[in-house]
């Protein structure tokens, strides 16, 4: 945690006279660090400057310059803005020292950058592909890598607009499917990589001390990707001693839908509906994160009118409630209370979805935010409905949920003391959202780095101190109550007026530069990193997905617990696979 003897930020260049320089490109910020100084620099940032929370790690392929850049965003866990630092290496031989030794939360993110961009992180303990499978040809986010259905670099494709020539992509692919193989590839002369190596690596070492008879054998158990309690297509491989988890490795990518590659072909506006499908339980907050990043690049051109600001807060907080009741329902499912608590949770969700449907036209995929405002105003009658929900029904129903569950003996017995994450670990693993706050770190982006108009509302940051499954459940419950508080204030103050600045446009041009927009999504800090080259499409579009990064700590949380507890620990992190795998 931060201590008081920290060095001020503007001394960074003084502290590192060599190897660190200001990023002087127009529209960019932060520092460029020489690759061989990176670990030293990061260690100093963490220990001397107080930037102990590494939020996002990602790469950018600057193909024209022949460079590969790794971008890091670090924060202080006490609040404040980001410190951005970058490392530039040649594309063809992209090797960067790994920061896993300094920030454990870099683990999965570095693996992702290796998988998708082909950046090798030297010193990473387990540098394997994470979203694609081992043996896949190429690193798909590199700008010169082309997918099977590739048509043009940028949308809209000329054939479709204004050409008007519509055809099925399958018809132009030699196999009639979305596949492309290396030249002269012959499947009959090729052996699959298989999963044996993977399982073998997990099978632990014998604990016995040389005596053959006393050796205990560890068993490797595979859960998923089709498993009723993994919340979708998620897989965990656990190695067990008896029933105790010795090691657990999450395996993901079964829902990797290439969000970022598609996003870099899309125009800016086209990406909004895609963000809906990231965390499909919380489409409104995803929208917000994305438009926030683009608005940062647009600057004053996209000033959000007052009414729209309020509508944004209202929708985002409703989304949080939807998400949290759903998370509580599924957690209880995982505990064995099959579907009954879920029915209670879904009842409230339906009522809120009705509001979304009336406002945005869709229950789940709202596509409601626009650059500089929101898409539609409230239709008649909806305001009253919202008031009724927020002032009457929801507080009562949340109390009811609380009464049924919180003191339930089985819930307490199974959740208390299980899956503990200490505050130091939570920060080191870059955990976010309820997972972080249940570990006693009062970090909420709405407070720590306020966006929109959150500084106007009176609410508390929910925080609990045991860091176990039970506290994560309680934090969610607290947060629902705080959301209701915010909603009550926002509905009372909702002003009349415009809902979007300027005329809505299909294609906007965004000034060149980079921006990182982040919001406190229901699952944690949701960040969007966007690099614009001044054209109508983003050059780089990256999502910092809280579901994905929170999983970095899953193995740690499960170690030493029973295998049945691994299920509820996963449930308490609350992941959505659309966001985990993107």
């Amino acid at each position: 945690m931060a201590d008081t003897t920290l060095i001020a930020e503007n001394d960074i260049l003084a502290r590192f006279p060599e190897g660190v320089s200001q990023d002087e490109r127009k529209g960019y910020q932060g520092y460029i660090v020489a690759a061989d100084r990176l670990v030293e620099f990061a260690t100093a940032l963490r220990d001397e400057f107080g930037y102990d929370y590494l939020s996002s790690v990602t790469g950018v392929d600057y193909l024209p310059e022949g460079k590969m850049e790794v971008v890091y965003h670090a924060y202080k866990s006490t609040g404040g803005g980001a410190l951005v630092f970058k490392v530039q290496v040649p594309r063809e031989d992209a090797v960067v020292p790994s920061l896993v030794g300094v920030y454990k939360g870099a683990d999965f993110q570095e693996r992702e950058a290796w998988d998708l961009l082909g950046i090798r992180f030297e010193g990473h303990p387990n540098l394997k592909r994470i979203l694609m499978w081992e043996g896949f040809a190429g690193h798909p986010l590199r700008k010169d890598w082309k997918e099977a259905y590739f048509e043009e670099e940028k949308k809209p494709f000329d054939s479709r607009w204004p050409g008007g020539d519509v055809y099925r992509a399958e018809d132009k692919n030699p196999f009639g499917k979305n596949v492309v193989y290396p030249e002269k590839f012959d499947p009959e002369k090729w052996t699959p990589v298989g999963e044996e190596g993977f399982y073998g690596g997990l099978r632990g070492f014998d604990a016995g001390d040389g005596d053959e008879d006393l050796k205990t054998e560890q068993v490797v158990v595979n859960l998923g990707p089709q498993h009723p309690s993994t919340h979708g297509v998620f897989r965990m491989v656990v190695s067990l001693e008896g029933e105790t988890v010795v090691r657990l490795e999450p395996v993901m990518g079964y829902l990797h839908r290439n969000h970022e590659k598609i996003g870099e072909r899309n125009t800016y506006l086209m990406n909004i509906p895609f963000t809906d499908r990231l965390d499909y339980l919380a489409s409104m907050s995803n929208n917000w994160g994305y438009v926030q990043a683009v608005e940062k690049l647009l600057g004053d051109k996209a000033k959000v009118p007052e009414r729209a600001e309020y509508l944004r807060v209202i929708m985002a907080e409703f989304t949080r409630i939807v998400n949290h009741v759903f998370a509580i329902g599924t957690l209880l499912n995982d505990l064995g209370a099959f579907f009954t608590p879920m029915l209670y949770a879904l009842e409230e969700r339906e009522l809120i979805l009705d509001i979304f449907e009336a406002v945005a036209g869709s229950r789940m995929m709202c596509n409601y935010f626009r650059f500089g405002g929101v898409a539609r105003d409230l239709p008649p009658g909806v305001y009253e409905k919202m008031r009724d929900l927020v002032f009457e029904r929801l507080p009562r129903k949340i109390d009811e949920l609380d009464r049924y569950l919180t003191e339930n003996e089985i819930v307490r017995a199974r959740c208390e003391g299980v899956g503990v994450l200490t505050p130091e670990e939570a920060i080191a693993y870059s955990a976010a959202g309820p997972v972080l706050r249940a570990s006693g770190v009062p970090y909420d982006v709405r407070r720590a780095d306020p966006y929109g108009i959150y500084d106007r509302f009176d609410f508390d940051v929910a925080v609990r101190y045991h860091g176990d499954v039970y506290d994560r459940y309680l934090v969610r419950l607290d947060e629902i109550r705080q959301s209701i508080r915010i909603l009550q204030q926002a509905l009372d103050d909702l002003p009349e007026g415009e809902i979007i600045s300027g005329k809505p446009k299909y294609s906007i041009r965004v000034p060149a530069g980079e921006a990182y927009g982040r919001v406190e999504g229901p699952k944690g800090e949701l960040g969007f990193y966007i690099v614009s080259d001044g054209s109508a499409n983003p050059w780089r579009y990256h999502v910092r997905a809280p579901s994905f990064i929170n999983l970095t700590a899953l193995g740690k949380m499960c170690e030493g617990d029973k295998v049945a507890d691994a299920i509820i620990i996963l449930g308490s992190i609350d992941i959505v696979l659309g966001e985990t795998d993107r």
Partner: protein
Amino acid sequence: MSEELNAKGYEIPPEMRNMVAVTTLDKLYNWGRRYSAWPMMFGLACCAIEMIATAASRFDLSRFGMEIMRPSPRQADVMLVSGTVTKKMVPQIVRLYNQMPEPKYVIAMGACASGGGPFKEGYNVVSGIDKFLPVDVYIPGCPPTPQALLYGLMKLQEMMEKQSIKTVRWYQKEDLPAIPVPILGPDLIDPRDFPEFQVKLAQAADQAQVEE
């Protein structure tokens, strides 16, 4: 019940209605299956959330005898492919399908499962589950609303009603071959494409010769 089951042209005395029905084997068999089609509990992506909403109290799948979702393919009758099918996942889906006992049905729920959907061009996305499995009902939407899903399930019931034991593919003399499980190579490989690979290789070799 017998009203629905009774075959046309048989007069049942009023006092015996509701107890006796004269019917065909097909009709009886389809009637039973129609109201007990258990879906497999199997969510892929966003559409699965709407599937859960459909199962909950507001829309209530149990009105159709379908509320019993089975996590095991061996106990399921209907596979609801509810979401984007990725290349990494498709081997498992095909395996699950092969493990389901006949009679079995596949519903492609949503744009993704039907044809790739919004993510179609993605390098890890399969352009619809029908590239691998025989699909019985397609439900459009992104995601389909619960009402749309229910309509799709009713269409499936209608389809079941029209089937005959004599003609359905799983009661024929020959065994139904399992669907070959796709392989994760440099890209997704469908074992059924092996002959085509050889053709392509031969073509490439020819071309190389011409160029020489």
